[in-house]
């Protein structure tokens, strides 16, 4: 440092050191691919060379073979179909109910005082523990699976929604009132769009939870489904098939997240 100062002094001044920048991450698409490729290549190399034993981790190429078998036998779609419909129905029920309850909590003092403690009590319950109860209530068929996923997505959606409603700019609501807008118009045209950013970011969490619960939901009374497939492979210690199933869940998560990203770009284009 003294050296640099000396040199600079000779030139009659010193350049101001740059100390700004950073704290603004920007998306770099290729980095994710590099990370994935390196990890998979490491696993492949290790299992081939033998410094990762076959019991520790399945060889990625074997997982790929298991995956190809799944596609060729047509079993993939037999499993994917029921799972996707459970995911769609269950999370749709949970999310719609969650948004409605969340808005009511956000708008009415009585509902807020009554339901916030209840939601806080329900949130930490591991929903998997309630599966037997749901089976009794809704039957061993699809009902209990929908209920489990719906219940699991309901609580995080409620919390995200009422937080988002709380954050809607009150001056916009006063503006609506000052122009004589009806209560319903204010909710529909001001509160709901204003809460949408928070609701959508809550949706990311809720839908990830829905995918997690899918496996749990298929623990009981499911012949087909990604969860059933994974559980079966797990109980047989068939690691290749287990991993093939896990990869499907991961991909599902990536797709769901990308879909929400698309919805966000469309619905929230107004944000700066």
């Amino acid at each position, binding site marked *: 440092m003294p050296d640099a100062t000396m040199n600079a002094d000779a030139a009659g001044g010193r350049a101001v050191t740059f100390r700004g920048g950073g704290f603004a991450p920007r998306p770099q698409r290729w980095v994710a691919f590099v990370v994935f490729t390196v990890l998979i290549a490491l696993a492949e190399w290790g299992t081939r060379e033998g410094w990762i034993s076959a019991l520790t981790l399945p060889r990625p190429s074997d997982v790929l073979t298991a995956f190809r078998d799944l596609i060729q036998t047509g079993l993939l779609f037999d499993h994917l179909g029921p799972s996707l419909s459970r995911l769609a129905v269950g999370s749709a029920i949970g999310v719609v109910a969650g948004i409605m309850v969340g808005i009511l909590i956000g708008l009415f003092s009585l509902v807020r005082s009554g339901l916030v403690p209840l939601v806080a009590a329900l949130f930490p319950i591991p929903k998997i523990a309630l599966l037997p109860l749901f089976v009794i209530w809704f039957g061993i068929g699809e009902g209990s699976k929908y209920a489990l996923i719906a219940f699991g997505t309901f609580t995080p959606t409620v919390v995200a929604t009422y937080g988002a409603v709380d954050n809607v700019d009150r001056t916009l609501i*006063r503006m609506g009132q*000052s*122009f004589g807008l009806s209560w319903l118009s204010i909710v529909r045209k*001001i509160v709901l*769009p*204003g809460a949408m950013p928070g609701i959508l970011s809550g949706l990311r969490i809720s839908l990830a939870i829905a995918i997690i619960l899918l496996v749990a939901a298929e623990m009981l009374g499911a012949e087909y489904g990604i969860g059933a497939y994974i559980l079966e492979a797990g109980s047989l210690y068939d690691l290749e098939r287990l991993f093939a199933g896990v990869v499907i869940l991961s991909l599902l998560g990536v797709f769901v997240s990308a879909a929400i990203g698309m919805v966000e770009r469309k619905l929230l284009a*107004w944000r700066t």
Partner: protein
Amino acid sequence: MEIRLEGIGHSYDGFEVMRDITLEIPAGRIVCIVGPSGCGKSTLLRIIGGLEQPARGRVLQIGEPPEGCLNPLTYIFQDFALLPWRSVYGNVSLVLEDHGIRGNEADEIIADVLARTKLSDFAKALPKQLSGGMKQRVAIARALAVNPAVLLMDEPLSALDSQTRELLMDDLVSLYERQPFTAVYVTHNLGEAVRLGHSIVVLSRRPGQIREVVHLDRPIQERTLGDPDLEIRQKHLWELMRAEAQAADAELMNA
């Protein structure tokens, strides 16, 4: 339509912010309310428009609002209060939709008010694309769309830089010239008050009371920036307010 305030007083949590305000707002006139910060001038405006209930006294509307008036008491807010997810057009149509005005009828009204505020080319723009001055012009267009009997303006130019403020003041004057409106104009800027007010109500510091009402007879379209007569008026107002503002500044919040 006229507005009369009778003995308005208000308190927050037993803390008196306003006392015995009696005031007439005659039709076709702009009444400016000035005062040191915290004197309750914005609260008073919210009370006039029915967004807040006064603890004492009452606000009366005298006479019927004009034909075709959708929202007699209409606000223009300091922070514009535009819906960021709606375009300029959508923000104006918001206040018409609830009155069942849609389609061609709405198009006509919106085209008219956007033309009056020089925004015709920006109907499809989103608020985030507009400058502060344009945003406030959208808010003015929205207020004009409901054909108000009285405009309630809460520091409408305070969020703008001084050049934009001058331009917008000219716009307000020309709107008034075209069609005189009734307005209550709250501001802390005495320059705006002497340019736009037919009468200027000076409030004291908390609890806000009327200290003096100054009348300016010169038509507002004849008043210009740097007019010596207005300067004298403004100086007089400042002398009235100076001690109050100083004392208000030295007060602790909620002490």
